[in-house]
């Protein structure tokens, strides 16, 4: 099928129960948002996986590039002091 005859791709986020975050469940094709929600219902919630659905057209998601991984994430490797567990707390401090 030629690209112009393909329905756009959508990313689907499902909230599994009240109080939890919406989690990325996968993607699907649909002609518009309404159909995307219904398709998501049929494809991703058949086994009671969710109570709420978000969809967003995949083209609106901007992602970091894997090429940037070294510059992005590795500098955090040797900065253990960014974790709260790095610090010794005085015994007098309670409830931390």
């Amino acid at each position: 099928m030629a690209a112009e005859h393909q329905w756009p791709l959508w990313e689907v986020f499902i909230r599994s129960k009240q109080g939890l975050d919406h989690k990325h469940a996968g993607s699907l094709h649909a002609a518009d948002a309404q159909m995307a929600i219904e398709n998501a219902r049929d494809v991703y919630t058949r086994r009671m996986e969710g109570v709420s659905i978000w969809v967003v057209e995949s083209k609106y998601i901007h992602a970091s590039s894997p090429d940037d991984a070294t510059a992005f994430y590795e500098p955090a490797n040797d900065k253990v002091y960014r974790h709260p567990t790095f610090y010794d707390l005085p015994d007098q401090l309670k409830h931390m």
Partner: protein
Amino acid sequence: MTAALIQYTLHLADDSLILGHRNSEWTGHGPILEQDIALSNIALDLIGQARNFYQYAATLINASGHTGLIDVSVPASSAPGQVTEDQLAYLRDGWDFRNCLLVEQGNGDWARTILRQFFFSAYQTALYEQLAQGRDKTLAAIAAKSHKEGIYHLRWSSEWVIRLGDGTEESHTRMTNALDELWKFTGELHATAPYEQETAAKGISPDLSTLRPPWEEKVKEVFDEAGISYPPPIWMQTGGKEGRHTEQLGYVLAEMQFLQRAYPGCEW
């Protein structure tokens, strides 16, 4: 009364089973993966409803001793008191089926499959809503459970009727062709069969004529949005609910019943 209740229960079961089977013919052939799954889900919903109704019908038939009480023949192979849901689905012949003509019509293209589902769901949701209030507790419970499924079927099929009717020139033409093909079978949805007169008189099932005006309103509303003109009154085909079917049902049964007839009692 039991005879009418059995026939009515079989009618409900047959409607769901035959439409469910027709829809299942799309599995693996849908226009796009997501819609293939959507329609297969609907098929499964309908076949699940049919099972509930057949189980109840089998209970009623077995309790009645099943001879002389009903004029649907039950499979000769079944001993008294041992009719099962599977026998009712797989071993009855065409003239024993009580489904309306609409549900047995061939799938045609996507437009015809959608329109058939829309006409039927618009009828079925209103029916189940009333049936859930009826005097027969088992039928009421099955109807209440199935009504939730039906609402989604109606929503899904309505949107597709609008999408195709209000889409491209080709999709519009396909939808109006489907309408020409199917409209003559819609009158039977609200035509009362003799057994329905009895069940309605007992407060088990609703008076079908009261369901017609809301059905027409729903169809008009969706057709309006789809840019399809509501057809003028025409002569309507009937008979399926009393066992007089179109040739289409034969093809459904030949495929659906083949395995049980070729290998009786086969399980897998």
